[in-house]
């Protein structure tokens, strides 16, 4: 990436996107997050991790949070800091308080043997692909968000 394509972060910067609650629009948030991460000089493999985590967070917000109600939108707030990118994906659902480490790994054996459904991997992928992930119920009880943080790994640059 040339110097022209990068930005110097001297103060926190925010980018916001609002998505309709329709499957497929998670790709808009995914592309936006990737563009911001590229400006911040994240490695390509970390940008791919971020893209999948953001897409899965938006899918959960669209499908489970807003229950595919197109009258509701999903908010995506990207906060650029000197050494990290924070992404909040906000929906109008009741959400869940889920602390890091409480998302279980999918059990492929149980899936293959029909003991659990083939779906249910989104939260696992989110947690596994970013440095921090937490699911928070809003104070009003009528909204919730997932907060993701991915850090610039300067040693590996």
């Amino acid at each position: 990436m040339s110097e022209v394509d990068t930005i110097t972060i001297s103060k926190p910067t925010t980018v916001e996107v609002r998505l309709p609650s329709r499957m497929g629009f998670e790709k808009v948030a995914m592309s936006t997050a990737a563009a911001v991460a590229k400006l911040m000089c994240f490695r390509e493999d970390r940008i791919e991790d971020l893209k999948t985590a953001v897409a899965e967070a938006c899918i959960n917000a669209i499908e489970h949070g807003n229950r595919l109600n197109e009258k509701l939108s999903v908010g995506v707030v990207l906060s650029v800091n000197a050494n990290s990118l924070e992404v909040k994906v906000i929906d109008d659902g009741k959400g869940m308080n889920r602390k890091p480490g409480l998302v279980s790994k999918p059990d492929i054996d149980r899936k293959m043997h029909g003991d659990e459904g083939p779906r249910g991997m989104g939260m696992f992928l989110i947690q596994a692909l970013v440095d921090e992930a937490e699911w928070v119920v809003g104070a009003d009880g009528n909204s919730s968000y997932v907060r993701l943080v991915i850090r610039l790994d300067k040693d590996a640059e």
Partner: protein
Amino acid sequence: MQSETKARVEQLTSPAGHAVAVLRFEGDIASTSKDAVLGTYQALPKETSRLVLLDFSKVDYINSSGIALVIQMMIEASNCDQKVYAFGLSAHFTKVFTMVGITKYAGLFPTQVDALAAL
């Protein structure tokens, strides 16, 4: 917004002489891909399609719903005594498939040549 998933089947023979049904996907693999993924697989003749090879080389976006469809296909294949393999995944999606455990039941290869050589 979802890019339509295209799928086509090609019958090949591995260097070892085994018949291989190659399912070539193009576009997104997401919740809307059920017909392309499961429908195309289910249309294969079971008796002559013991080895099923999935080509992801023209797929840019796979989400967890799409991965679930692949797992559903693997379950059906396992029940029919078929073996499933795949090639053409990016490094990222190779990692994701490994993380969710798919590699325990389906061999992943970088290219079609690598896959066929192993079958």
